[in-house]
């Protein structure tokens, strides 16, 4: 065994083991996420949800997978043979490739080799993540076009317009992170968020508030506190990138049957399905990494390597829950509202936030000025939210509720 390790080199073995472990983990998580979504949605709709296979229906996804595995696979006569075959692969591969730059645990030393819980710490990690997200569009567009059918074609056209619009916002929302972290490597970004906030001098000299400000010493030094506008843009654009509700227009069941994947069945359909859920996990993990300190959290002497893993998966699970919650709560956006939100709100907001971040991080601008700018922006956003943008409200309010309101007003 040791001879084999010497021949190939321990580094290659480490890389291989990392890759395999990450794969098994990612697939396991994805199966759990599919089950969790069905269970949570069922709970929110006062149903029981899957409960036949395994305890609490845990093996439901596996059962579904096996079922799809044994399904007949037939291609429409009008379909373009090779493009039709490649499309599901082109959706799934970039989705899991993006996970390669997500650090999911602290560095550990095994047999004298320092090992990071990350497949590859690219120095352009963020760019790589964005690139893989963009590649996912190809699978959807090719699937819609290659089916030679009308509904998938419409789904593909919608999808390409939606994804390219929100991709810009997604990319621009990460520029401020690069500004404050001075790096595009995800490991460096997590490292920069370690510890707690210590240098708040804004309240110095004010009797009571000075004492209250001590509480900041127990607050983790995450980017969410200073970069929350970037986070908001990232989250909205990220949900749009995954084609999840309320941005699931490419596969809008009520309008387009099943959208781009209408003509797919069996194992090929399972690929699209799996790809979508891996994408959800990746976006959640990336949100945790960039804004919520990644794997950082309180650690204990008992199994010290385990706690970072626990905190990472715990935070990621919260984000996955948010995805599911949004699906259960929000109705689908109308298409013109979707484009309006992406181009006329998110992109200008992201550009503005890059400028604000650059100004407050320029040398010579004191920390108090920075805090003042953040406070002013916070009040501004609060004012906008409380006033409510009528168009945004119209975009997300269910038709029924609006009509009811109008009727009751009329009656009064």
């Amino acid at each position, binding site marked *: 065994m040791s001879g084999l390790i010497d021949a190939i080199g321990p*580094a290659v073995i480490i*890389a291989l083991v990392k*890759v395999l472990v990450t*794969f098994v983990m990612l697939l396991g998580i994805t199966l759990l996420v599919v089950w969790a979504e069905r269970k949570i949605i069922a709970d929110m709709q006062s149903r029981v949800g899957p409960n036949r296979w395994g305890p609490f229906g845990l093996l439901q996804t596996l059962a579904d997978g096996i079922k799809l*595995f*044994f*399904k*007949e*696979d*037939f*291609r*429409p*006569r*009008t379909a373009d043979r090779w493009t039709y075959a490649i499309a599901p*692969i082109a959706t*799934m*591969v970039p989705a*899991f*490739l993006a996970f*390669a730059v997500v650090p999911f645990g602290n*560095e550990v030393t095994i047999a004298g080799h320092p*090992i*990071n819980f990350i*497949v*590859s*710490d*690219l120095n352009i990690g963020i760019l790589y993540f964005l690139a893989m997200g963009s590649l996912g569009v190809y699978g959807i567009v090719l699937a819609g076009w290659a*089916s030679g059918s*009308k*509904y998938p*074609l*419409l789904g593909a*056209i919608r999808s*390409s*317009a939606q994804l*390219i*619009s929100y*991709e*810009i916002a997604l990319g*621009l929302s990460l*520029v401020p992170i*690069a500004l404050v972290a*001075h790096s*595009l490597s995800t*490991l460096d970004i997590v490292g920069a968020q*370690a*510890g707690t906030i210590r240098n708040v001098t804004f309240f110095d000299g004010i009797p009571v508030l000075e004492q209250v400000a001590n509480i900041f010493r127990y607050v983790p030094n995450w980017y969410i506190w200073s970069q929350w506008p970037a986070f908001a843009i990232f989250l909205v654009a990220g949900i749009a990138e995954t084609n999840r509700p309320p941005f699931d227009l490419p596969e809008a069941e009520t309008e387009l049957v099943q959208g781009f994947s*209408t003509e797919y069945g*069996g*194992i090929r359909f399972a690929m699209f399905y799996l790809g979508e859920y891996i994408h959800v996990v990746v976006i959640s993990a990336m949100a945790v990494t960039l804004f919520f300190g990644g794997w950082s959290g309180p650690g204990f002497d008992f199994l010290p390597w385990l706690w970072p893993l626990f905190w990472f998966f715990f935070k990621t699970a919260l984000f996955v829950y948010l995805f599911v919650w949004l699906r259960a709560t929000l109705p689908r956006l109308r298409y*013109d509202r979707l*484009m*309006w939100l992406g*181009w*006329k709100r998110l992109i*200008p907001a992201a550009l503005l936030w890059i*400028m604000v971040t650059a*100004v407050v*991080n*320029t040398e010579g601008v004191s920390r108090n000025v920075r805090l003042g700018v953040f406070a002013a922006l916070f009040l501004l956003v609060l004012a906008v939210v409380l006033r409510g943008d009528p168009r945004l409200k119209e975009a997300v309010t269910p038709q029924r509720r609006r009509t009811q309101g109008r009727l009751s007003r009329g009656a009064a």
Partner: protein
Amino acid sequence: MVHPAHPPDLSTTQERCYKVPDGYFGQYVTIGIFAVVGVALVFGTLSLAKLVRPNVPAKDKYTTYESGIDPIGRGWSQTNVRYYLFALLFVVFDVEAVFLFPWAVVFERLGTQAFIEMVIFIAILAFALLYAVKKKVLEWL
């Protein structure tokens, strides 16, 4: 709880670059292994499914779905591709992002002059976006 992101490495620059899990090129090699394993897994699943699934051809199975009736016309009928203007704007703003990222990483070292230049750059593109809005290019009918 401060952990060094990169442990000090005392090997030569070239060795460092090609070291597999952590070196500059080594990291891309790892990504390559990841991609190869992934693609192999996907192809393996597809091939395995091909072996076990039934194949019962019937003429009507191979028509496309059109709400239960026989499809009318061809699937690749003429479609109004509305998003080509969006696509043009996308190219502009995506290139902008490409310029913004390197600037953001070395922002502190470049200082005020680079900042002002970047403000001008963003302002020009923001003006272009405003122009597109005024021209009603971004209206999706």
